[in-house]
C-alpha cells in the first residue's frame, strides 16, 4: 500500500515539476515592442514604444519628432507671403487646405475680405484637397488590414483630382495659391466641366470602396468594436474632424463657425456615427468624401463672377493684434493663432494641427488592445506625420 502511494506521490511530484518547468520556460513577462519609426502604418516616421504582456498592449508611448521642422520658429523670420509656402508642407496630403486658415486669419487682422469669387474657388479647392487626402486614407485603411486592391484604386482616381488642382494652381502637392486678399489666378478654361467629370469618378471610387470593404466580413471583424473612443474622452483630448464625429459629436467647423467661406450658401450634410470605433471612423470618412464631391458640384454650379483679388498693398503689413482662425481640414481642426506687431511678418504663430491632438490619444486608446489592433487603430485615427511634427 505504502509503495503504491509512494509511487503515486512520486508520479504526482514529477508531473507537477514538469508543469512548473513548462511554466517557467513559457513565462511571459512584459516585453517591449518597438513599432516604427519606419512602419507603413505610421505614415512617415512616428515611433510607438509598446509594452506587451503576451499579445496585449499594457502601455503605448508614441514618440514623434523625427521630422520636426520648427515652422513656428521659421514663421517669426518670414513675411506673410513666404509663410503660405511653408504651411503647404504641414499636411502634405491635403496641401491646399493648409493655406486657407492662415490666410483667413491674416485677412481678419488686416480687415480685408477676399471677393466672393475668390472665396468660392478657395472652398472648391479646399474640398478637392479633402477628397485627395481622404481617398488616400480609404485605400490605405485596406492595406493596414491586408486588402491591397483599394489603395491602387485610390492612387488611380486620386491622380485625377491632383491633376485638376495642378491645372489651377500649378502645383501637385505645394500649390501656394492663396494670397492675402484673394487668389493668385482665376480658373483655367474648361476646368469646370472637367472637374465635374472628375467628381463623378470620385463618387464611383467611393462606391467601389464601399462594395469592396464595408461589407467584407474580415474588415468588419477587425474594425467593429476596436479602439472605441467615448465622447467625453474625444472632447477632452481635442480630437477633431471625422474622429470626433465618429464618436457621436455633431460638430463641423464648416457649418458651426462663422466663416467667410460660402459653406452656408449651399445644402450639404454633416455625417456622424455613434459607435466611436475604427469602423465608425472609416464609415464617416467614406461618407464625407462622397459629400465633398457633391459640395464641389454645388459650388461649381453657383460660382459667382467677379474679381479674384481684393486691393491690398504691395508690401503686406498686418496691423498689430491677435487672431485665431481654424477650419475643418481633411484631418480635423487646423488653426493658426497669429500674433502681429504690425510688421511684414508675424511676431508669433501657434499652429494648431489636427493630427497632434488626434495622436496624443494613442497612449490612452491602445491600452489593453491586441497587437494587430494597434495597426487598425492607428490606421483609423488617420494622421499625417508632417501634421504632428510641424
Amino acid at each position, binding site marked *: 500500500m505504502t509503495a503504491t502511494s509512494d509511487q503515486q506521490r512520486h508520479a504526482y511530484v514529477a508531473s507537477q515539476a514538469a508543469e512548473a518547468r513548462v511554466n517557467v520556460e513559457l513565462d511571459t513577462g512584459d516585453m517591449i515592442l518597438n513599432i516604427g519609426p519606419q512602419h507603413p502604418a505610421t505614415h512617415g516616421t512616428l515611433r510607438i514604444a509598446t509594452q506587451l504582456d503576451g499579445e496585449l498592449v499594457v502601455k503605448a508611448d508614441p514618440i514623434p*519628432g523625427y521630422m520636426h521642422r520648427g515652422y513656428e*520658429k*521659421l514663421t517669426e523670420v518670414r*513675411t506673410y507671403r513666404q509663410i503660405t509656402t511653408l504651411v503647404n508642407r504641414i499636411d502634405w496630403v491635403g496641401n491646399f487646405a493648409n493655406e486657407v486658415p492662415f490666410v483667413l486669419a491674416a485677412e481678419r487682422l488686416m480687415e480685408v475680405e477676399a471677393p466672393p469669387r475668390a472665396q468660392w474657388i478657395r472652398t472648391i479647392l479646399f474640398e478637392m484637397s479633402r477628397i485627395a487626402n481622404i481617398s488616400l486614407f480609404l485605400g490605405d485603411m485596406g492595406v493596414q488590414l491586408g486588402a491591397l486592391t483599394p489603395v491602387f484604386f485610390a492612387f488611380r482616381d486620386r491622380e485625377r483630382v491632383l491633376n485638376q488642382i495642378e491645372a489651377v494652381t500649378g502645383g501637385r502637392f505645394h500649390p501656394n495659391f492663396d494670397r492675402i486678399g484673394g487668389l493668385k489666378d482665376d480658373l483655367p478654361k474648361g476646368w469646370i466641366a472637367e472637374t465635374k467629370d472628375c467628381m463623378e469618378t470620385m463618387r464611383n471610387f467611393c462606391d467601389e470602396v464601399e462594395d469592396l470593404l464595408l461589407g467584407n466580413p474580415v474588415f468588419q471583424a477587425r474594425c467593429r468594436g476596436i479602439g472605441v473612443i467615448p465622447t467625453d474622452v474625444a472632447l477632452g483630448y481635442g480630437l477633431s474632424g471625422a474622429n470626433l464625429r465618429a464618436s457621436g459629436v455633431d460638430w463641423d467647423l464648416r457649418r458651426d463657425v462663422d466663416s467667410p467661406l460660402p459653406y452656408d450658401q449651399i445644402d450639404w450634410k454633416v455625417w456622424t456615427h455613434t459607435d466611436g470605433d475604427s469602423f465608425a471612423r472609416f464609415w464617416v470618412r467614406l461618407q464625407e468624401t462622397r459629400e465633398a464631391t457633391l459640395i464641389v458640384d454645388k459650388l461649381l454650379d453657383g460660382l459667382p463672377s467677379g474679381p479674384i483679388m481684393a*486691393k491690398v498693398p504691395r508690401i503686406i503689413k498686418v496691423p498689430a493684434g*491677435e487672431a*485665431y482662425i481654424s477650419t475643418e481640414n481633411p484631418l480635423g481642426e487646423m*488653426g493658426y493663432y497669429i500674433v502681429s506687431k504690425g510688421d511684414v511678418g508675424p511676431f508669433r504663430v501657434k499652429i*494648431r494641427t489636427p493630427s497632434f491632438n488626434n495622436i496624443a490619444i494613442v497612449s490612452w486608446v491602445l491600452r489593453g488592445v491586441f497587437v494587430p489592433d494597434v495597426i487598425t487603430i492607428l490606421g483609423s485615427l488617420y494622421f499625417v506625420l508632417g501634421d504632428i511634427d510641424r
Partner: protein
Amino acid sequence: MADETTDNDTPAEVLADEARDSVVERLTEVLGDGVVESHVQPGADVWVRVDGNRWQDAARALHTMDFAYFGFLSIIDWAIAPEGRYEDADFDTGDDGESISSVPEATGVAGGDTRFQAFARVHSITEGLGVTLKADIDDSMTIGTWTGVYPGADWHEREAWEMFGVTFAGHPRLRNLYLPSGFEGHPLRKDYPLLARVVKPWPGIVDMEEIPEHLEAQLEAEVMAAFEAEEGGA
C-alpha cells in the same frame, strides 16, 4: 461691474456680442478677481486673462461651463529677438539678463505684465464658440497643469516645456516630445538664435526691405494699372 471689457479699438457701431460677454461674466462669477482682464471682439473672438495662480481653476470653471473641447495650449514669449527681423530696431531688446520675466515693450490682446504668457483655447460645442485664455508666468517659470481637466493638454504642455522652459506643476511626466533628450536650450524663446540664419543669411531678407520712396509710387501705379486692366478684361 463684473464685465471689464476693453473695447478701445473696435468701432462703436459694432453690435455687442451677448454670448461672448456672458462667457466673461460667468467666468468672473466663479473666479472673482482671478479674472485680470478681458477683451471681446464682437462676432469674432473673446480673450480672458486670468491670474497665473488661478490657471487651473480657470480650466475647471470652463470645463463645468461646458467648454469640453480642448483646442491647444502654448506660450508666447514677448521679448524682442536680438536677431532677424528686429536686429536693426532702435528699441530696447528687453532682455538685459536682470530678470527672466522682465516686462516687455508691449503685449497683446488682454494685456500682460510678464515676458512669458501661457495661452490656451477651449471650445464649447453646445454654444458654438471658443475662448482664448491667457495667464502671466512669473519668475518661478511655473504654472499649473491642465492635464487633470483636459487630458489632451499632456502633449501641449510637454511641447511648451521643452520649447519655452516653462514648468507645468502637477504634470504626470514632463519629458521631451520633439527634441532629443539632453537637448540644451529652449528653441522657441526669442533669444534662442535660428542657427540656420546664423550660418548663412537668408536671401529672402531682400523682400522685407523698405522700397526707396521714389520707386514706391511708381511700383504702386504699375500694380494698380495691371490690376485695373485685369479687372476690365475679365
